[in-house]
């Protein structure tokens, strides 16, 4: 089937960038190393530099090494554009290759020193480092209001998918590509798994109001909408607590992590098609793809308390070992499967330039 949502590239570009700018904060997360996250970031930065909006840029933990620390492949550096704000550590600020005006030094300490907020006077390359924890990141994004920032872009990391959590940023962009798998159907499946978790439906506001503020434990919501703490000490002890689990009905709220074990347990229940599992947000699912889909296919339902917005997926057809997938095919298959815009930013820019 031919792709029907593929307008001309230039039009596409604008829509993408315009949408990015409607959010107060946005995370760019790579699904694996070398999936082209930095390429995608640089593309966005180049495209929005003349938007008239004030942009701030930071990273979760350390990023922007000149060489990939694992594969030793050359890595594109992040290029900050004139007038953009960026937040990085003292160490990386001193190594900057651009002129930048210091605007603030936070008292927050990282392993690389305090965090510096600066405005780029000239465009140039920078190593980004930022707060390593979701809470500090959230705080930092809020503080950007002081400098009239319209959109804060967070360079995320795969291991820190939690930064894409709705509790931290308003929206996210995924970077995926041949580095994750060189088999297009496999790559699409793996990406779709992330996509599907992000797009889990939102629980009704009535129930959400009752569950807000619960930080841990497994809870049941009975038919009258009353909530009950099931006092299940650990998801590793489910076997012993089987009866307790469903004593108040089949609607459960797991405030913490949804482990493989928990989802397996639910999937194996005879009445799985009557079970409704509510989770905090998509970052809490730590189960394999197979278990996740098996649970849903058998009729189990899953809702989130906080939903995330996945803006777009960027694909990098090139893998670090030299394999190159067909960009257009990858993009089309991916877009068809996910139903959201998929871009190959490198190709877009090459097309644009030529």
């Amino acid at each position, binding site marked *: 089937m031919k792709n029907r949502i593929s307008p001309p590239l230039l039009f596409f570009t604008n829509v993408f960038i315009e949408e990015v700018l409607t959010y107060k904060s946005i995370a760019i997360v790579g699904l694996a190393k070398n999936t082209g996250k930095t390429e995608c970031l640089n593309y966005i930065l180049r495209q929005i530099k003349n938007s008239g909006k004030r942009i701030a840029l930071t990273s979760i933990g350390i990023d922007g090494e000149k060489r990939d620390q694992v594969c030793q492949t050359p890595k594109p550096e992040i290029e900050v554009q004139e007038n953009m704000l960026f937040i990085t550590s003292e160490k990386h600020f*001193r190594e900057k290759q651009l002129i930048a005006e*210091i*605007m603030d030094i936070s*008292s927050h300490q990282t392993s690389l020193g305090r965090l510096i907020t600066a405005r780029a006077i000239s465009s140039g390359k920078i190593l980004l480092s930022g707060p390593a924890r979701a809470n500090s990141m959230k705080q930092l994004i809020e503080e950007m209001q002081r400098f009239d920032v319209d959109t804060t872009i967070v360079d995320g990391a795969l291991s820190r998918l939690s930064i894409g959590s709705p509790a931290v940023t308003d929206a996210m962009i995924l970077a995926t590509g041949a580095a994750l798998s060189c088999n297009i159907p496999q790559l699409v499946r793996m990406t779709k798994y992330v996509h599907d978790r992000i797009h889990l439906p939102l629980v009704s506001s009535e129930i959400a109001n009752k569950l807000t503020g619960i930080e841990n434990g497994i809870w049941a919501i009975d038919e009258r909408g009353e909530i009950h703490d099931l006092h299940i000490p650990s998801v590793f002890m489910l076997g012993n607590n089987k009866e307790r689990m469903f004593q108040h009905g089949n609607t459960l709220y797991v405030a913490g992590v949804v482990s493989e074990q928990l989802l397996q347990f639910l999937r194996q229940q005879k009445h799985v098609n009557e079970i409704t599992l509510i989770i905090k947000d998509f970052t809490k699912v730590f189960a394999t793809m197979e278990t996740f889909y098996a649970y849903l296919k058998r009729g189990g339902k899953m809702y989130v308390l906080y939903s995330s917005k996945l803006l777009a997926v960027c694909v990098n057809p090139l893998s670090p070992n030299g394999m190159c997938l067909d960009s257009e095919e990858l993009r089309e298959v991916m877009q068809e499967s996910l139903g959201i815009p998929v871009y190959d930013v490198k190709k877009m820019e090459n097309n644009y330039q030529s």
Partner: protein
Amino acid sequence: MLLKNAIEEINGLRFMIDKLDIQSSWAKRILLDSPYLHSAEEINTELNKVEQTCQFLNKAKSSDIIDKICLKLMQTKDIRGTIKRIFEQQNLDDIELFEIKTLALAVSEIRDLLQEGKFNIIRLPDLEAVINLLDPEGMRVPYFYVYDAYSKELAILRKKIKNIQMNPDAHEEKLENLQYEHTLIEDRIREELSIQIQQYKQEIKDAFQNIAVLDILIAKGKQVIELGLQKPNVAQEITTYKKIFNPQVQDALSHEGKKYQPIDIRIEKKACLISGANMAGKSVILRTVALAQALFQFGFYIPAEEAEIALVDKISLCIGDEQNELKGLSSYASEILRINTIIQEIKAGKEALVLIDELARTTNPEEGKAIVNAVLEFMTTHHCRALITSHYSGIKANCNRLRVKGFIKDKVNGVLNVNNINEYIDYSLIEDTGDNVPQGATRIARMLGVDEELLDKVEQYMEQ
């Protein structure tokens, strides 16, 4: 002794310090490093500053200015590292120059605010020259980079680099050379700035320290008003408190909807024995007196309606909460060793305020009584200000005697329980002439809900 050591020893002092609304964390560190003051002059100087601050805070029009000053204080950062580097004549980098500029601008704004409010107990040096150095474009915003305005050469070079960067066909090598040159010029400018800033190093250091002092004074002043603290006078001989109270206990009581009863007390240069029933607040008296003395010696207002306080070299406490059990000492051993230390200090000529709670309570009553007599006599003969509480009767030593009034007779018929007991006790101190100690341990135990069978037995033994 520093304040940070004193808060470990003096019960209730940490409460007072933690409650201070200090804006910057380094001002709090400076406060914690402030010394125990030994001369009346030092203490008076400090107390007068607090007094002036309070007068300023009490003016109606000040509150707006104070809020603005506090906001500025909150934004100032600890730049001791940078100041140290200026004194070491190091070359400063952008981050350090930024810190100095931010400080200089904040100091200038605070100076203006102080002038506007005619509040002049703190002298903040004029750092306009430093601002001018670091703000060549005259924008007066607290940001910094090596501005084009520092050098024509730099401005031209930057334009050149920008043009080359815009041109995709540019020579990589040429760009690198220009960037190297750019770095050299920037470094030269930073070096020049560092040398120029050298001239103002003392002013910068003073300004930095004085805004911390200002921060502390405002916090002290606010606390004085909030808790109703008073300025103590320095006494030569006798310490007297009128309506002294313990802010921490008062705070805890008010959370339960109860009232704190302030008391009057007079401390002469001799031993004073305080007796009173259980739960009559003897320990609180000792702790409160210790707290007030400590606050006074560190230059704070004190929690009383009126006070004349004699200076002491040391506040020696033996309240029985030392953790020597961990060292393998029994409670008696640890107490008597503590008393020994106090005695040795007094013999060495230290003027101490000695506060001992229930001396020798953990040994047999005969010897215990003898110990109390001996310690009281020692303190009196050495003209030492000492408050010692005890439940022992038959104390003969030469000393002053005070007793907590205790249960109010005409109220005693009401239903007493743990929650309302404080309404039935008059905590004030009266001079005691006899040597009989108030009794009531059984009654209080009964009120606390202790087993009836046990208490009946206690009473049987009492009758024997």
